[in-house]
């Protein structure tokens, strides 16, 4: 596992991959267990119906939430899953270079015959694979929950929703790598990317209720993840292409920035 930077990065993530996958499996099964109570509980609908219109818009149509697709679109795909997966993406992405810099190990690494672009490429590839594994277990956990509690949900569309979420996580991964290289300080980069994630999340979430957010949401990576509600409507190829563009754009930007960057001790 220590033959190259890609494998070393995988090795460093082994425990995280295990626990994150286990967490997603657990929460997926738990949500499937919870769904029948939710769909039959009229009290919750009454409470939801009494919420202010902006909040109601954010949560979706009350009756719709009682269907499997509506429920899972709301939870985990609108709240829990993106927030959790971004936590992984941002922390790992920022750590690609800024983490090595803060640990003081970047000097040793770059004193070996490995190119700066190679370091970024191998690390990003490794974290992308780890995220892929976590998403696969997320999907398997969801399917297991649906089977265990006999919930009728289109698994193809479920897979498409998870692919869309995966692309969101990759977008934020490369954005975080770039921020990490720009600041070379983990805390600042994490703060900045998290702030951007929060603002862009809220803009996308409130856009249906607030007109002035309609244009702004095109700058939100969340729009290209959840704007089309892939668990209901399947993947939007245009959105998928934009997500891919964001990921590739920031990957190239991070490589170009890192090549130019002076690395002080």
């Amino acid at each position: 596992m220590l033959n190259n930077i890609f494998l070393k990065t995988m090795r460093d993530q082994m425990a995280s991959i295990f626990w994150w996958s286990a967490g997603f499996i657990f929460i997926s099964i738990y949500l499937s267990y919870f769904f029948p109570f939710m769909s039959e509980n009229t009290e919750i609908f009454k409470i939801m119906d009494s919420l202010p219109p902006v909040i109601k818009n954010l949560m979706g149509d009350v009756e719709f939430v009682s269907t499997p697709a509506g429920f899972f679109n709301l939870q985990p795909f609108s709240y829990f899953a993106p927030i959790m997966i971004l936590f992984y993406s941002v922390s790992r992405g920022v750590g690609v270079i800024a983490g090595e810099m803060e640990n003081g190990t970047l000097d040793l690494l770059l004193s070996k015959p490995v190119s700066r672009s190679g370091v970024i490429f191998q690390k990003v590839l490794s974290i992308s694979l780890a995220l892929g594994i976590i998403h696969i277990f997320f999907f398997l956990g969801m399917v297991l929950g649906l089977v265990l509690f006999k919930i009728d949900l289109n698994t193809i569309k479920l897979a498409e929703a998870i692919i869309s979420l995966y692309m969101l996580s990759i977008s934020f991964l490369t954005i975080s790598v770039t921020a990490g290289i720009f600041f070379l300080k983990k805390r600042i980069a994490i703060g900045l990317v998290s702030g951007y994630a929060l603002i862009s999340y809220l803009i996308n979430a409130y856009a249906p209720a607030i007109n002035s957010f309609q244009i702004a949401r095109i700058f939100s990576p969340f729009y290209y993840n959840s704007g089309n509600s892939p668990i209901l409507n399947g993947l939007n190829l245009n959105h998928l292409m934009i997500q891919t563009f964001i990921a590739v754009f920031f990957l190239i930007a991070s490589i170009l920035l890192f090549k130019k960057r002076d690395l002080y001790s």
Partner: protein
Amino acid sequence: MKEMTLPVIRIENLSKYYGKHRGIEDVSFEVDRGEIFGYLGPNGSGKTTTIRIMLGFLHSYRGDVNIFDRNIKKDLLPILSRTGYLPGELSLYGNLKVSEFLKYFLNLNKKTGKNLMKDLLDRFRCEPDKKISSLSTGNKQKVGIIQAVMNDPDLVILDEPTRGLDPLMRQEFYALLRELKNRGRTILLSSHVLTEVEKVCDSVAIIREGKIVAIENIHSLRTKNYKILEITCRGLMDRKRIKLLKNITGLEFMGNKMKCHLHGDIDPLLKALGKNYIIEIESSSPGLEDVFIKFYGNKNAE
């Protein structure tokens, strides 16, 4: 064959600024094959900046660095594949075992040097199965030294290499440097410890405030260097006679004690003390800054 006659390191007019602040200015020197070259200077003088440019960590504002007759801007990776490096502020991957860490860096070098690694582990009494996070500072430094030379590189760049090493391991390290030199390897040793440089280096460049103030053969540096002596006698010394000695400066008398800077041999001083009963002689080397002030202060001011 061409490379045999060319210097391994050729640095010409290298300059680097940090915004408006000076990093280094017009640094030039050459290091030949098989040479142990000391790069001396106090903290913040520009040693590490020079090394970081040589390794491609920093981009120079002006000037050229050629190593193995290749320019670092064009051929950095082939240069690095033949270079070992020990950073001044060493940090290792604490979650790895010593052997795992070394194997990882061997793999990154894309060369096999496993036998050398094992020999070095034995030589520096490193336990390969220990986790790096559990090692003392000195033991981490030993691992750092091993990773720098385990590939048998043609050039070794060492930044403050003996930091944290105990006296025995320091001697072992000096012996290793001599062996590398005998095998034709080139070593650039950056240090602010003059005694260390005197011990192992063939020649030195001295950098002060970002500028090279001297490039000298170590013999020449030795003759310019001095020892600080503190001598305690029973009874008063013959002060007039001692003051006449030409290889004594900075003379101070305090009762039955004297303090001075001794340049060269001690014999004339002992003879000047004559029949005095000497209780104690304490000898120490001056700090590098003292040598700067003494020999290069005026030159630098110009």
